């Protein structure tokens, strides 16, 4: 899931993060818009209040319009920010007081409501308001306009502060949302990883259907998996059955032929006929053994592919195999000496494969040993478990040692001994499947060879 196709989690997180980013941007724009409006509105309100308080201070005296600008009218403009402040009081188009070049805000006229405008004055952008009043002086109606204007630096400062805050909040929101997305994706995908874990924990031979509770979305996958496993199980079963069946089909008639030949052999008198029958029986033995090892090899390969391990005591293994092959060795007065260490050892492995490997080695040793010789089977183990089989047979040619474990390769000096060349291949395959090796060396105590199966032990 980590490599190759894009991960679901990454896609989920990316998409959720994208949504979060869009929401953040929308939030940012909305906050800036609303707050910008609000601050502008605030400034307009203060300007209008200021202009109104000046307009309220208009009075007429001896037929002239006068104004006493209240302290608060201008000081209120300085409470929020340090903006520049301008004002202009106009009576019937004539400047009464203030900055006489301060322009009139242009806007909807005719209404008595304050008119706002934004314009440039003395190098700064100003927000201006005009409030109009009509006053009677000397029995004449007088039209008074009060203009108050303020630079927008404070507004910009507030706006930039809002922008900064909105950005920070937006970014924080995005980060939190993304983190939560990652968390949510992880959570949502937990059943999937649980399923994957359950599958990974299974032994290679465990082809039972998955029973773990899976969310509805995974049901088709689990269903497919289960049906696949049942088919795989059936196929594996068929392979094993096939091998077993093939062995039976080959061996049973061979056994009959051999037995018949043996019976006939007993009745034969002429040495040449007896010789011919012996040849025949040997041929039967050879093909039976070859077939057996071929099928064994197939089985070993099958089991190695799905290695199912358990704790195996190598001492028990050796004792058992030596017991099994003792009668065979005894036929030719070959003595098998078993030397085991006192300390118990354990190998993590498939007992059937290990037994087959050990049996093959010992079988080989017996087969190539002359009558009335000794075979020494010994074991030592610290970290690795070394099972050594030394015989007093003809040994291996140095040139053969490397290629012996190859399939169908036999030593160049096997002579008349029946063999298929698969024995050591099987041993070597089993060793490799268990992370071990096969070592072949001349017997240091004289003639013969030592074959050592090296396996990791615990």
């Amino acid at each position: 899931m980590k490599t190759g196709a894009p991960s679901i989690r990454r896609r989920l997180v990316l998409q959720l993060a994208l949504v979060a980013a869009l929401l953040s941007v929308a939030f940012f724009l909305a906050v800036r818009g609303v707050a910008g409006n609000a601050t502008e509105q605030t400034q307009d309100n203060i300007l209008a209040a200021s202009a109104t308080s000046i307009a309220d201070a208009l009075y007429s005296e001896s037929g002239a319009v006068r104004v006493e600008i209240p302290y608060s009218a201008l000081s209120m403009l300085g409470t929020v920010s340090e903006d520049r402040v301008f004002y202009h009081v106009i009576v019937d188009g004539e400047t009464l007081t203030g900055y006489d070049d301060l322009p009139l805000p242009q806007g909807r006229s005719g209404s008595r409501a304050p008119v706002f405008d934004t314009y440039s004055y003395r190098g700064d952008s100003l927000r201006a308001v005009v409030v109009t009043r009509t006053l009677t002086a000397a029995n004449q109606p007088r039209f008074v306009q009060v203009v108050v204007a303020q630079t927008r630096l404070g507004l910009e400062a507030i706006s930039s502060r809002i922008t900064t805050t909105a950005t920070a909040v937006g970014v924080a929101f995005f980060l939190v949302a993304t983190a939560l997305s990652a968390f949510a994706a992880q959570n949502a995908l937990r059943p999937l990883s649980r399923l994957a874990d359950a599958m990974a924990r299974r032994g290679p031979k465990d082809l039972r259907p998955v029973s773990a509770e899976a969310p509805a979305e995974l049901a088709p996958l689990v269903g497919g998996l289960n049906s696949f496993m049942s088919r795989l199980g059936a196929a594996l079963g068929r392979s094993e059955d096939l091998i077993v069946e093939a062995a039976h089909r080959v061996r049973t008639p061979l056994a009959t032929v051999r037995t018949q030949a043996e019976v006939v052999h007993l009745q034969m008198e002429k040495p040449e006929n007896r010789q011919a029958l012996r040849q025949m029986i040997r041929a039967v033995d050879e093909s039976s053994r070859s077939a057996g090892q071929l099928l064994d090899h197939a089985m070993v390969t099958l089991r190695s592919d799905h290695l199912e391990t358990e704790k195996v005591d190598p001492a028990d293994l050796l004792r058992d195999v030596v017991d099994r092959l003792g009668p065979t060795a005894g036929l030719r007065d070959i003595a098998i000496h078993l030397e085991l260490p006192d300390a118990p050892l354990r190998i993590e492995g498939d007992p059937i494969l290990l037994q087959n490997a050990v049996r093959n080695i010992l079988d080989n040793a017996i087969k190539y040993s002359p009558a009335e010789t000794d075979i020494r089977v010994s074991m030592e183990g610290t970290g690795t478990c070394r099972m050594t089989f030394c015989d007093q047979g003809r040994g291996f040619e140095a040139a053969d040692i490397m290629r012996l474990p190859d399939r169908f390769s036999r030593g160049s000096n096997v002579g008349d001994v029946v063999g298929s060349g698969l024995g050591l291949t099987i041993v070597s395959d089993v060793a490799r499947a268990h992370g071990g090796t096969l070592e072949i060396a001349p017997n240091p105590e004289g003639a013969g060879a030592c074959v050592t199966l090296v396996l990791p032990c615990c």
Partner: protein
Amino acid sequence: MRFLLVEDNADLARALSGRFVLGGHAVDHAASLEDAELATQTVGYDLILLDIMLPDGDGRTFLRRHRSADNPTPVIVLTARSEVSDRVGLLDLGADDYITKPFDFTELEARVRAVLRRHGGAADNSREFAGLTFDSTSGVISAGGESTQLRNRETRLLEVFFAAPGQIFSKSHLMDRLFSFSEEVSENAIEVYVGRLRRRLSASDATIETVRGMGYRMVRRE
């Protein structure tokens, strides 16, 4: 010794029976599981040779029932199946040993001997001839209060002679009994073993006599 051979292949059964009779044993043959059940219920056997694939079922079923009935008779399984898949299962089911078909009779004989020896003590297999006591199962001879352990081949050779004292056995017959087909040995090898046996028997009145042009026989020393 009395053996039960459970085997559906009649040729094989006949051949095996013949060889065991030659060794001085009695063999009953059962061609199916049903016959085998019947036979074991009526007769006490010293050993059962059991084929796994039988027309009316799996030999393992018989084996399981046999063991659960606490029947002590040892069982050697004759199997044609893959060794890798069957081996552990058979021993776990209570087989004392197994042998894969096709097999050399000498090998089967050796396994029978080993199994019987493990179950030994039940029957006394000692026979006596001319002051010589011979236990074919353990391969021990004693004469004049002295015991000697024979080697495997010496035991088997002496066993042939003990089966019919005085009878002449040809070299080729002895070879067939002593060597497997996989061994290429000359007839002179027999002379070596006969020579050894003669020395082993020297403490007793029994000896192996050479009958020129015919073979050998065991006789009382003159």
